[in-house]
C-alpha cells in the first residue's frame, strides 16, 4: 500500500513523459484517483494497528533504507493526497497543451517524492528525496516562461540548493559521528558533543532555508507570486511543508533525545513570531493579490515554528499533545486554505487578466463563487471558529498558556489581527462598486468549484479534530520506537 504511494505517481510521471499527447492530463486524473484511496488505506492501517515500517529491498537496519509510517506521516500524506488531487484536476483544465507537457511529468515526480518524504526514515534518503522535490519545484516555478518568473525561480533554486548542501554536510557529520543513517537508530545512538551539534546546526539551517522562515523568506514571495496559479498552490501548500516535516522529524526524533535542541528551540520560536508579524505586515501593503497570498505564506509558516519551543525545551512536557495538535492542524489547514486562495487568484487572473487588487472592484457580483472562496479560505487563515485554523490557534494558545511561555501568545493574537486586516482588504475591494465595469471572461465550471471545495475542506476539518488528535497521541513514533523494534 505505502509503496504504491510512490510507485503510482512515478509510473504516471514516466507515462506522461513518454506519451505527451492529447490525453496527457489523464495520467494526472488517474493518479489523483488512486493516491487519495491509497493514502486513506495507509491511514486506516496506522489508525488501527499503530505505526509501522518497511525495509526496502528486504535489507534490515542499519544497512537498508526504510519507509516509516506513523500518525504524523499519515496526516501529511492525507493532506498531500487531498490537496494534490484537487490541484491536479484543476490543472487538467487550466494548462494548455504545450505547458501541460512540461507540467505533468514534473508534478507527478514531485508528488512521488513528497509522498516518500513523508515516510522518510533515513537521513541520506531524506537528502535525495528533498533534492528531487527541490529540482521539480524550481522547474515548475518557471513554468510560465516569463522573465520575472525565471529570475524568481533561479533565486529559489540557489537558496534551495544552498539549503540542500548544508543539509548534506550535516548528514556527513552525523554519519561520521555515529556510523549510521537510519533516523530511529540515530535517536538511540546519538550523544551530544561538537560533531552532533555541528550536524544539528547545518541540517537545521538547510531546512529552515527551504521552509522560508524569516530571515530566509526572501525567495518565497517572488517565486510563488510569479508562478502559474496551480504551481503557486502546490509550492505554498505542499513543498514548504515537506522541509518543515523533515525538520520536525529530525528535531523530535533525533536531536531532542540527544539533548541539543533546547536553546536553539527558542531561536526558532522567536524567528517564527517575527515571521508571523513581518509576513502579515507585508501582506497588508502588497498591491497584487498573489503577492498578498505569498506573504501570507511567510506568516503562516511562522506559526508552525512555534512548535519547537513548546516541544523541544522541556522533556515529556504535559502540553506536548496540544502543541502537536496545534502544529499539525496549522499545517493542514494552511495547506488547504492556501491552495484554495491561490487557485481562486488564478481564476481571477483568468477572468480579468490581472491580480492587482485595485482592479478587483465589484468581483463580488461578477464572480460570486470566487469571492466566496476567498472569504472562506480567509476565515480559516484568520482562525475564526469552526475552521481548521481556529483549532490550530486554539490548541497553540492552550499549549502556550500551560507551558508558561506566555510570550509566544503574541503570534496567534497579533498575527490573527493582521491576517484579518489583509483578508478584509481583499474582500473590501471585492465588494466595492466600480465606476467602469472592466471586461470579464466567465470562468469554467470546474475551475470555480475546485478552490471552493478546498476552502470548504479547510473549514470542515475543524469538525474532525478528535481523529487527528488520536492519530497523533496514540501513534507518535518515538513512543513505539523506544518500547520495541530493536
Amino acid at each position, binding site marked *: 500500500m505505502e509503496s504504491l504511494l510512490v*510507485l503510482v505517481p512515478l509510473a504516471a510521471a514516466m507515462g506522461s513523459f513518454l506519451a505527451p499527447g492529447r490525453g496527457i492530463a489523464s495520467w494526472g486524473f488517474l493518479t489523483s484517483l488512486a493516491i487519495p484511496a491509497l493514502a486513506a488505506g495507509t491511514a486506516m492501517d496506522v489508525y488501527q494497528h499503530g505505526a509501522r515500517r518497511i525495509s526496502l529491498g528486504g535489507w534490515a537496519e542499519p544497512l537498508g533504507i526504510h519507509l516509516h509510517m506513523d500518525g504524523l506521516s499519515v496526516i501529511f500524506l492525507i493532506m498531500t493526497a487531498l490537496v494534490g488531487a484537487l490541484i491536479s484536476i484543476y490543472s487538467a483544465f487550466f494548462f494548455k497543451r504545450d505547458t501541460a507537457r512540461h507540467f505533468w511529468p514534473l508534478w507527478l515526480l514531485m508528488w512521488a517524492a513528497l509522498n516518500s518524504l513523508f515516510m522518510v526514515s533515513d537521513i541520506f534518503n531524506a537528502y535525495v528525496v528533498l533534492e528531487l522535490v527541490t529540482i521539480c519545484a524550481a522547474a515548475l516555478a518557471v513554468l510560465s516562461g516569463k522573465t520575472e518568473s525565471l529570475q524568481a525561480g533561479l533565486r529559489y533554486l540557489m537558496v534551495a540548493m544552498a539549503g540542500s548542501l548544508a543539509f548534506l554536510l550535516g548528514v556527513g557529520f552525523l554519519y561520521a559521528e555515529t556510523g549510521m543513517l537510519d533516523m530511529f537508530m540515530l535517536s538511540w545512538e546519538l550523544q551530544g558533543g561538537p560533531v552532533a551539534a*555541528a550536524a544539528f546546526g547545518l541540517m537545521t539551517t538547510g531546512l529552515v532555508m527551504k521552509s522560508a522562515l524569516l530571515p530566509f523568506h526572501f525567495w518565497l514571495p517572488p517565486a510563488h507570486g510569479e508562478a502559474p*496559479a496551480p504551481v503557486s498552490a502546490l509550492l505554498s501548500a505542499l513543498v514548504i511543508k515537506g522541509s518543515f516535516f523533515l525538520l520536525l522529524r529530525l528535531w523530535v526524533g533525533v536531536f531532542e533525545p540527544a539533548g541539543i535542541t533546547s536553546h536553539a528551540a527558542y531561536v526558532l520560536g522567536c524567528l517564527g513570531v517575527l515571521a508571523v508579524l513581518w509576513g502579515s505586515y507585508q501582506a497588508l501593503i502588497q498591491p497584487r493579490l498573489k503577492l498578498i497570498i505569498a506573504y501570507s505564506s511567510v506568516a503562516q509558516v511562522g506559526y508552525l515554528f512555534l512548535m519547537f519551543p513548546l516541544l523541544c525545551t522541556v522533556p515529556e512536557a504535559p502540553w506536548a499533545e496540544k502543541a502537536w495538535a496545534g502544529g499539525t492542524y496549522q499545517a493542514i489547514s494552511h495547506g488547504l486554505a492556501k491552495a484554495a486562495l491561490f487557485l481562486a487568484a488564478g481564476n481571477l487572473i483568468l477572468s480579468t487578466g490581472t491580480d492587482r487588487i485595485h482592479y478587483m472592484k465589484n468581483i463580488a457580483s461578477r464572480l460570486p463563487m470566487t469571492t466566496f472562496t476567498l472569504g472562506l479560505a480567509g476565515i480559516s487563515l484568520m482562525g475564526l471558529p469552526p475552521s481548521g485554523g481556529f483549532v490550530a490557534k486554539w490548541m497553540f494558545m492552550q499549549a502556550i498558556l500551560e507551558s508558561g511561555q506566555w510570550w509566544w501568545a503574541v503570534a496567534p493574537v497579533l498575527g490573527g489581527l493582521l491576517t484579518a486586516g489583509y483578508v478584509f482588504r481583499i474582500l473590501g475591494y471585492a465588494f466595492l462598486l466600480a465606476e467602469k465595469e472592466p471586461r470579464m471572461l466567465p470562468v469554467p465550471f470546474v475551475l470555480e468549484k475546485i478552490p471552493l471545495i478546498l476552502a470548504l475542506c479547510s473549514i470542515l476539518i475543524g469538525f474532525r479534530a478528535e481523529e487527528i488528535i488520536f492519530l497523533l497521541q496514540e501513534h507518535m513514533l518515538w513512543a513505539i520506537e523506544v518500547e520495541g523494534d530493536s
Partner: protein
Amino acid sequence: MALFLDILVAFSLVAIAWRIMRAPGHFQAVVLFITFGLLLSLAWARLNSPDIALAEAAVGAGLAGVLLLDTLRAVAQPGKVKTGAHFSWLLLPCLLLAGLLTLSIIHIQPDSQGLARAVEAGMQTTSLEYPVTAVLLDFRGYDTWLELGVLLAAVLGLLCVRRKKSIRAPLLPAPAEPVGRWLISILLPLILLVGGFLLWLGAFAPGGAFQAGVVWAAGGVLLWQAGHPSLGALPVSLWRTGAVLGFALFWLLAATALIRNEPMLTHPQAKAWILAVEYAAALSIAVCLTSLAIGGQKSEDRNQKSEVRDQRSGDRCQITNNR
C-alpha cells in the same frame, strides 16, 4: 613523500578556491573551477576512494566545465566583472563558520567504521561482488533510483525553461580545421570502449553505471561540439525512451516485488536482473547528461517563439482553449 603530496594537494585546493573567488573575469573563473575539480579528484584518489575520484573528474571537472563554458558562450558578454568586492563582508562569517566546522571535524573519531561491517555482512547475501556497487544498486538501491529521477527532473526542467519538446536544436557550426573532426573519429570509438569497460568493471571493481554514463556523455558532447547532431538526431520518442529507461527498469524491479508480496525493491538475488538495471541506468545517465549539455541551446524555431509570446499575453488565452 606521500605526506608532501597530500599537503601540496590540500594547499592548492584552498589556493585555487581563493583564486576562483578573485578571478578577474568569468572565463578565468571557469577554467580555474575545472582545475579545482581535477585536483579534487586527485584528493579523492589519495583518500582511497577511486569511485568518487572517477565521478568527480568526469562530472565535477568535465561535464560541469562544459556546461559552464557553454553558459559563458550563451551569455556572450565576456566583459569583466568586479568580483570579490561585493563579497568581502562575507569573509568574517565564512571564516567563523569554517573555524567552527574545523573544530567539530577534529572531534570526529578517526577510526569510525561507519557501516562497513554491515556492508560486509550484507555481501554474503547479495549477488554482487564489489561492495560499492552492491551499496549503490542493492542495499541502497532506492537512493540510486531516485537519483536517476533527479537527473530526469533536471532534463525536464531544462526543457521547461527553454519551452522545447525535445533536445533538438540548431547545429553548432562545424570547426573549420580538419584536426577536430579527425580527432573525433579516433576518440569516439575509444570513448565507447572505455565507457563499456567501466560499466563491465563495476560488477567487481571501481567503476559502474555513473562513471560509464558520464564517459559516454562526454562522447555525445564531443560529437555535438564538432558540429554533429549527436543525440539530437534521434527520433524524439527514442530519445525519450533512452532518457527514462534506467529509471523505468528500476521501477519494474521495485514493482515486481509487490506482486510477490515482498517489500518494494526486493528481488531474487539474480545477477542478470541487477546488471540489466545497471546497464540501462548507464545508458539513461549518458542520455540525460548529454541532453543537459546540448539541450540548453535556444531553439530558433518560429513556432517556439510564438508559443512564448502566447504565454506572455497572459493566462487569458487559456480560457478560450478550455472550452
